[in-house]
């Protein structure tokens, strides 16, 4: 029953996940290395700009008692901006830019198949605690990607959280996020 719920939820998180690797064109080609290089270098330049902007806000100059809080980060931002600009430029203008595929479509699908359930796992973890969420996650992963029957997947999926529970909550006394079930059992 739980598994059904998870499976229904998964497709919903896929579009948001595919965001960074947008338009999937024909013939298994996703994005070229060149495009990805440009995107990443561009994002890093954006980060650099934010860092520099915020450093100027807190003061990137010289106060009477020494460098202001933004002095060091400002120059860090400047170096990041310059270095990423060079990477951006090299990829934009170079004739030898790598036009090969950043990731093939089947490979991207596999990556998304790991990433999407993991995002779901975190959401479920937030509500029911880490142990139940882990059991569901391992079971789902084994059945979906490993094509195991529930009879083989369930024992593994139940045993591992139990071992973890013993290890963290009982042996080492480290509290992990718990939900209503653990509360009902008195933990």
């Amino acid at each position, binding site marked *: 029953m739980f598994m059904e719920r998870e499976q229904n939820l998964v497709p919903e998180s896929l579009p948001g996940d595919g965001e*960074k690797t947008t338009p999937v064109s024909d013939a298994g080609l996703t994005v070229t290395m060149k495009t990805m290089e440009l995107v990443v270098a561009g994002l*890093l330049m954006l980060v650099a700009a934010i860092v520099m902007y915020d450093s100027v806000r807190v003061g990137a100059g010289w106060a009477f008692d020494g460098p202001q809080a933004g002095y060091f980060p400002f120059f860090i931002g400047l170096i*990041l901006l310059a270095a990423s600009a060079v990477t951006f430029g090299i990829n934009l203008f170079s004739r030898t830019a790598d036009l090969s595929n950043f990731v093939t479509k089947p490979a991207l699908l596999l990556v998304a198949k790991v990433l999407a359930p*993991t995002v779901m796992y975190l959401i479920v973890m937030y509500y029911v605690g880490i142990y139940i969420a882990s059991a569901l996650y*391992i079971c789902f992963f084994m059945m979906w990607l*490993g094509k195991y029957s529930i009879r083989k997947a369930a024992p593994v999926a139940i045993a591992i959280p139990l071992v973890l529970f013993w*290890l963290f909550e009982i042996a080492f006394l480290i509290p992990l996020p718990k939900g209503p079930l653990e509360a009902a059992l008195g933990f």
Partner: protein
Amino acid sequence: MDAFLSLIHGFGVLADPMNIVYMCVGVVLGVLIGVLPGLGGANGVAILLPLTFSMSPTAAIIMLSSIYWGALFGGAITSVLFNIPGEPWSVATTFDGHPMAQQGKADEALTAAFTSSFIGALLAVIVITFLAPVVAGFALRFGPAEFFAVQLLTFCSFVGMGRESPFKVLAAMTLGFALAAVGLDSVTGQLRMTFGTVELMRGFDFLIAVIGLFGIGEILLTMEEGLSFRGKSTTITLRSVMNTWIRLPRFWVTYLRSAAVGCWLGITPGGATPASFMSYGLARRFSKDPGNFGKGEIEGVVAPETAAHAAGTSALLPMLTLGIPGSPTAAVMLGGLLIWGLQPGPMLFIEQKDFVWGLIASMYLSNVIGFLIVLTTVPLWASILRIPFSIIAPVIIVLCCIGAYTVHNAFLDVVIMLFFGVIGYVFKKLHYPLAPLVLALVLGDMAESSFRQSMLISQGDMSIFWSNWLVGSICSLALAMLFWPLIALMLDKLRGGGRFSPGGA
């Protein structure tokens, strides 16, 4: 002689049987981490860090460093048997190790790899034993300018020694510094880059970054390849060990050269990975028979393994003596020291003698234990690799989440960890190096405060970094490292398309 007496004292600390138990547990866990994809020295130690909070610092560091040695040994197993480098530093081991396994000489290759790792580590530990007290004594006289100079050298070495584009190294590094600057500024108490949110006030913890970048990122990369483990299996018999050992003394020059390369790159943080490649390249260049390399030459296993283990071990030297880790794993251990309330640096050698010398003595013993364990248990590890990835992967991701959560008991950290995982995946594919990012995140605050202190002393005059011969030469060396790619390019041009560039090795 002083170092020798301290070492004997250190072995006295080890006499507690619990320490030996922790050592064995650590080595076994470490080999497991080294064998499994997605778990490596750095994130493996980071995940297990919370389990050590209830131990004494000495027992904890002994266990964590044993995990590290185990991981160094474990990487060789997958490289030889499965042609899958379990760790980045064992990539060079696959070149000749796997061809040997295909020729049915897996036992020889593994024996050679383990023995070389052991010898490399041993030579590096000897270097640590006698060099660390000297460096620590020297560093006692360091002021903020000197500390900043050493940190500068650390980061510039990444640019000079890195195999990636220098601009990408710089970008990854400064991104780490920028992330480290987020949160409360410790000098002025101002909030930096929090954009009015409470969550960002804590800043980014590097342990979270390490677990995400190396753990989740690695799983995603492995997943992409679809993963079918098809490997050779082998057992190591006493006879094959003896047969290999008889052949190994011939390579004593290779051992010494590789260990020297490893120690050098471990102390100035190039790290174990470039050390293994450089050592492999050098061994091939000096070999009488370079054509055999890549086809199953035993020297091609000896050289990278010796260097990788020597580098991995000696990376702890700057961590202990200066508080500047030489590798991401050393950085995680440094984080552990801070959590246990120990301040790494020269004072550690004066105030925490038991701790320091217990750790150094444990390096000798745990490498012996690790060597014996891996030699006898190879079939076990090979069979673990046959557990399907669809079972291992979710378990590793669950462990990563637990590791990230336990750092601050904050759920948001788990989300940040996953985010770092995606960054790690994209960065790895585009050849942005992750080690400088992590080290900058660890050292960011420290580097900034030593920079600001020296600026305060000098009233903002940059010439303080060239004010005496010591700080001046470190700074000049750092600048030489920073511009090394450019210098190498010019030297190449002068020689008319030179034949060998050390920066690229």
